[in-house]
C-alpha cells in the first residue's frame, strides 16, 4: 500500500514538472514607475485577460529609468536617436571591427565570435543604448527558463518601455539568435516609430496609441520624432494626459477590449488556446 502511495505521488510530481511554460508574457513599464506600480500594471493586464493557463508565465522586466523630467526625456531622445541610426548589435560590431582595425576579411564564424565577445560591452555602452538595457537583459535571463526554439515570447510595453522592448527584441534575435517568429511586441502608448518583432499575420494588430494621448502628441512635436499613427480614441481617461496604462488605456472599455484582443491573438496563434475578451 505504501509503495502504491509513493508511486502515485511520483507520477503526480512528474506530471506537474511536465507542464512547462510555452509562452512568456513580459511587461516593460514606462519612466518614473515605482517597482510596486510596475508590478500592479502587469497584474492589471493579467486580470484583463481573465485567463488562467499553466502554459503561460507573466513577468515584469522592470524599467528603472527615472529622474527629473529632463533626464528621462534625454534618455528617450538618446534611445530614439540610436534606434533611428539603426545601432543594432550588428552595427555596433561593424563599427568595432572598423575602429579596431580588425582584418576586414574575416569569416562569418570569426565575425560571430567578435560579436559575442563584445556583447556585454554593447549592452553597457551608455553612448549607444538607454541606461537600463543591460539590466533588462539581465532580468530577462533570470526569468526566462525555456528553450528559445520551443517557447514563445510576447513583450507588452507601455510608453518609454517600448524603446526597451524594441531593443530587447533586436538584441535577442541578433545577439542570441532567438527565432524571429517567436518574439512579438504588443505596444501601448509608444513614443517609438516602430514595433519590432513578429506580427500575427492574421490580425496584424500590434499596437494601440490614442489620438488624445497628450504625452504622445507632445512627442510628435519634437523635431525628427514620429510616433506610430494613432489608431484608437480614449473616451474615458482618469489621468489628465490620457497616457497612463491603468487609468486610461485599461480604463476605457473599448480600448481595453482592443488590448485584450491583441494579446489574445498571440495566445491563440501560438498555443491554440482561446481566452475570451
Amino acid at each position, binding site marked *: 500500500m505504501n509503495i502504491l502511495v509513493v508511486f502515485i505521488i511520483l507520477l503526480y510530481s512528474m506530471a506537474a514538472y511536465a507542464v512547462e511554460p510555452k509562452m512568456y508574457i513580459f511587461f516593460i513599464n514606462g519612466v518614473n514607475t515605482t517597482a510596486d506600480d510596475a508590478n*500592479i500594471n502587469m497584474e492589471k493586464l493579467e486580470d484583463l485577460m481573465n485567463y488562467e493557463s499553466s502554459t503561460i508565465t507573466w513577468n515584469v522586466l522592470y524599467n528603472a529609468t527615472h529622474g527629473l523630467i529632463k533626464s528621462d526625456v534625454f534618455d528617450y531622445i538618446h534611445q530614439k536617436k540610436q534606434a533611428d541610426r539603426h545601432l543594432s548589435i550588428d552595427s555596433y560590431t561593424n563599427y568595432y571591427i572598423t575602429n579596431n582595425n580588425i582584418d576586414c576579411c574575416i569569416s562569418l564564424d570569426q565575425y560571430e565570435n567578435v560579436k559575442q565577445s563584445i556583447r556585454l560591452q554593447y549592452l553597457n555602452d551608455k553612448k549607444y543604448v538607454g541606461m537600463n538595457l543591460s539590466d533588462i537583459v539581465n532580468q530577462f535571463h533570470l526569468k526566462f527558463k525555456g528553450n528559445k526554439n520551443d517557447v514563445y515570447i510576447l513583450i507588452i510595453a507601455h510608453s518609454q518601455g517600448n524603446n526597451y522592448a524594441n531593443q530587447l527584441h533586436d538584441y535577442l534575435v541578433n545577439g542570441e539568435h532567438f527565432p524571429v517568429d517567436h518574439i512579438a511586441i504588443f505596444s501601448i502608448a509608444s513614443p517609438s516609430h516602430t514595433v519590432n518583432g513578429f506580427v500575427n499575420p492574421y490580425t496584424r494588430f500590434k499596437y494601440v496609441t490614442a489620438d488624445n494621448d497628450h504625452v504622445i502628441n507632445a512627442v510628435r512635436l519634437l523635431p525628427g520624432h514620429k510616433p506610430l499613427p494613432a489608431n484608437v480614441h480614449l473616451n474615458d481617461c482618469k489621468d489628465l494626459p490620457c497616457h497612463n496604462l491603468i487609468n486610461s488605456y485599461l480604463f476605457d472599455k473599448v480600448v481595453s477590449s482592443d488590448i485584450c484582443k491583441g494579446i489574445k491573438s498571440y495566445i491563440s496563434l501560438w498555443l491554440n488556446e482561446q481566452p475570451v475578451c
Partner: protein
Amino acid sequence: MRILVSVIIFLFSFNANATSILSIAGKVTNNLGIRDDILRYIETSIPGLTESSRYAVMRLAANQQALYYKVRSYAEASSLIVSSSVALKCLGLERKDDYEIFKTIEHMMMDTSERKEHIMNTCSDLFGHDGLPHKHVNRNELADRCRAKDY
C-alpha cells in the same frame, strides 16, 4: 592629526546621511509603521472602508514605508512587493477605486523632490538589476488569503 580629521569627517558624513534619510522618511509615531499623515488620510479621507479593505490599504501604506526606508535585502524587498500585490488584489475585490487609492498613497510617499528621488533610487537599486518577484495567486487562493489577512 590628518587621520583624526578624516575620521571625524567620515563619521560626520555617515551620521549626516542617516539623519537625512530619517528626515526624508517622515514622522511615524504609530505602531502600524505608516507615516502619520498617510495614516490620517486613510482614516479620514477614504469613505466606506470595511475592516478587510482598511487592512489592505494599511498594508499597502506600511509596506511602502518599510520598502523605502527600512529594508536591507532583496529578499525582504521582494516579500513586501508580493504582500502589496496581494493587498491591492484584496482591495480590488471590494472596491473599484483600488488603484486610485494606491496611487494617492504613492503620491503622498513622493510628495517632495527628495522623497521622490530617494524612492526611485531605492527601486532602481533594489530591483533594477535583478527584477521583480512575481507569485501568481489564483482566484480561490486569493479569497482565502484576503479573508485570513494572510499578506
